[in-house]
């Protein structure tokens, strides 16, 4: 059976060049990068080269990067790190209703320690209102954490403008750029961001790797206490192979981003148009332009998302509804509900997230098989009869 992978926002395959960059450090180059002897030297060099490459992708200085074990760790480190470092100053955090659980649940956890979080609403396009953000800032506000691009809809938030507001009001600003990194250009210098999280496995790097950009002067309480790694900011002997891989992935992203993004948006637009032409009662979710080039989030009215995904899977197509991390839950997508979709429409959404391996043929195959799947599920739906 044909196998087509349309779930790149969940994770991406490791690029063969990335694997090649990693292998020596899983084989002969075993040394501890903190050792002063010959065995550690190449490991140290690999880390510093990896750091250079990631910093080039983010346009930041080498001292401003902390390697992490994941995007989730980066989000935790940024939010808890700032909260605990600034707790004398205030206890108020501002974020949005559409963040990844790595941010939402970290803020929820901090409530136990007396921190209060404002969760900003989004409009039907998935955008926040900057005036509402401004009004939410109080003298007790210590941190704003707003994602760069949403994992479910691909909607890109106005990070530059948010950073300007945060700077003017002297509030630390973190952005979860896990979905943006590698897909659209990021520039930590131009944006007024203090902290920015990325994750390796979303850009063809290894799972369990990531990095946190922390601007010079931003105070962070470490999440993991230990040795003098990453200038005392994160203990633990570095994941040398992972860092070499992450660096290579960043380098490749820099090189290929422009070309790829043009290709992906062409394919993505074709999916949206092709399905809309053939299937009535569907809705594309998220802002029309301010969106990642690779992501299509579509609601199929009267049917439920998981049953569509199972049908697609039987035809060899991997896609998802909501995010991979929340698919264990029964609730429809918190992101789509926040955008004002009804329960049924949120439940009936499918996310197609494209990547390097996808071809025009994959897209045409999807457009060919999808109408029958939707029709079959609708014929079983008690909600559909009335709408015909």
């Amino acid at each position, binding site marked *: 059976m044909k196998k087509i992978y349309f779930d790149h926002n969940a994770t991406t395959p490791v690029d063969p060049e990335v694997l090649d960059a990693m292998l020596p450090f899983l084989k002969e180059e075993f040394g501890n990068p903190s050792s002063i002897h010959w065995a550690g030297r190449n490991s140290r060099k690999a880390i510093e080269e990896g750091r250079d490459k990631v910093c080039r992708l983010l346009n930041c200085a080498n001292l401003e990067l902390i390697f992490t074990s994941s995007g989730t760790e980066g989000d935790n480190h940024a939010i808890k790190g700032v909260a605990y470092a600034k707790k004398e100053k205030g206890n108020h955090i501002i974020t949005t209703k559409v963040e990844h659980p790595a941010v939402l649940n970290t803020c929820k956890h901090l409530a136990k320690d007396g921190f209060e979080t404002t969760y900003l609403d989004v409009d039907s396009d998935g955008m926040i209102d900057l005036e509402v953000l401004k009004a939410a800032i109080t003298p007790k506000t210590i941190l704003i954490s707003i994602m760069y691009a949403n994992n479910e809809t691909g909607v890109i938030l106005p990070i530059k403008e948010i950073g300007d507001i945060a700077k003017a009001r002297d509030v630390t600003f973190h952005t979860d750029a896990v979905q943006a990194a590698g897909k659209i250009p990021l520039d930590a210098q131009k944006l007024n961001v203090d902290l920015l999280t990325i994750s390796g496995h979303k850009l063809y790097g290894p799972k369990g790797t990531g990095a946190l950009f922390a601007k010079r002067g931003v105070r962070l309480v470490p999440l993991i206490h230990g040795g003098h790694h990453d200038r005392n900011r994160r203990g633990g002997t570095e994941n040398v192979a992972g860092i070499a891989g992450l660096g290579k992935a960043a380098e490749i992203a820099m090189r290929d981003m422009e070309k790829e993004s043009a290709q992906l948006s062409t394919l993505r637009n074709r999916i949206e148009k092709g399905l809309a032409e053939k299937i009535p009662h569907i809705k594309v979710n998220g802002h029309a332009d301010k969106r990642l080039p690779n992501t299509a989030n579509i609601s199929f009215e*009267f*049917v*439920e998302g*998981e*049953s569509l995904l*199972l049908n697609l899977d*039987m035809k060899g197509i991997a896609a998802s509804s909501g995010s991979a991390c929340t698919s*264990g*839950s*029964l*609730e*429809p997508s918190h992101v789509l509900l926040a955008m004002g979709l009804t*329960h*049924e429409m949120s*439940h009936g959404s499918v996310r197609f997230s494209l990547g390097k391996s996808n071809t025009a043929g994959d897209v045409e195959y999807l457009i060919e098989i999808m109408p029958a799947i939707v029709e079959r599920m609708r*014929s*079983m*739906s*008690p*909600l559909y*009869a009335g709408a015909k």
Partner: protein
Amino acid sequence: MYSEKVMDHFSNPRNVGEVENASGVGTVGNPACGDIMKLSIKVENDVIQDVKFKTFGCGAAIATSSMVTELVKGKTLDEAERISNATVAEALDGLPPVKMHCSNLAADALHAAIEDFKKKAGK
């Protein structure tokens, strides 16, 4: 994640639709997830002669709907009333733990349909 039986009933659901001139209809929503099932039955001499379903729900909801129709067809009302969500889940060789609640939908819709029949029949 799902057993072969679940996937079989999901891909080839039995008894989809609505029974004509139904003796009883049960429509229930699952409070846990908001999914909906509608089950209609045709009863003659206290035996369920025909049964059909329509479901807006996940794979497990559709498979349990299909399975419950197979389980009750030809059964007496007394026998059908004893069918619980566990009976349906078992008949499908089990469901993943997070999906156990989905089988409530099928059992609840069946019991609601029987209740509806009894009310209409004045029993």
